[in-house]
């Protein structure tokens, strides 16, 4: 696994994940800059993504959607804030509702930094929730799922311990 570090700040509500790749910074930058490459990794296999508009220029907006297994579409939008190829990218990620309008409080910020040394490029992505509300939105489903999964895992474990 290329992930080398994960830092979570529960007060600032940020996640910073760092990974190393056997490629140069320019190549990593392409993963972000080229919408056709972005589509290959942004959405999970169950929800492939389609980038409609995407250009890494400060002030530009990216629009994309992910298509779920039942054909349902989840729309998203980025506001590109800072671009310094191939080293730094900052944007905000707006969650959109079914009509493609911005959903209240769903914004998260993303900062990507890419450094290169000896043929290895290190990419660090910091994601932060704008506020508690947008965090709550992200976990509406995630938290319940996580909790249920955790309890389901506990069942056999604790059952076996008691037997």
């Amino acid at each position: 696994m290329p992930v080398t570090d994960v830092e979570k700040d529960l007060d600032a509500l940020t996640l910073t994940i760092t990974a190393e790749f056997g490629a140069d910074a320019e190549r990593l930058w392409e993963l972000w800059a080229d919408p056709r490459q972005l589509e290959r990794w942004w959405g999970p296999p169950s929800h492939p993504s389609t980038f409609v508009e995407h250009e890494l220029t400060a002030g530009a907006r990216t629009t994309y959607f992910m298509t779920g297994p039942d054909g349902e579409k989840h729309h998203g939008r980025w506001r590109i804030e800072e671009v310094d190829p191939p080293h730094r990218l900052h944007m905000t990620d707006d969650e959109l509702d079914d009509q493609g309008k911005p959903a209240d409080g769903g914004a998260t910020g993303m900062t990507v930094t890419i450094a290169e040394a000896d043929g290895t490029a290190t990419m660090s992505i910091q994601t932060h929730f704008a506020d508690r509300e947008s965090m709550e939105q992200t976990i509406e489903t995630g938290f319940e799922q996580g909790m249920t999964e955790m309890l389901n895992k506990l069942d056999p474990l604790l059952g076996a311990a008691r037997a």
Partner: protein
Amino acid sequence: MLTYNQMVVDKKPIREDERATDLLFGALADPIRRDILRRAHEGRLSVSALAREHPISVTAMQKHVAVLERAELVSKHRVGRESIVHTEADALLRARAALDRLEADWRGRIERMDQILETDKGDN
């Protein structure tokens, strides 16, 4: 398990923390109580409604709920004559759950990025 454990560690001084951990594991070590946690997420079920889901009396259910309350896993509030049970999702726990979910998303993305780089190398 780790999530709950760390939640408690973050919140309490060491001594109390051990006691809280005991309470927590004690509370989770019963299938009926784990079922209550699942069902009480939306905070709409009363103690008597929960009792109807299991072959136990309301009094027995009250005892189970009391164990969960002591471990701070649920809270109770009264609505009319009913005691409504709600699974506690403390702010820290929710923050952790949100960040855990983000981490899982990003781990997936990074793995896919790595695969793309590897695949493209093979093509050249």
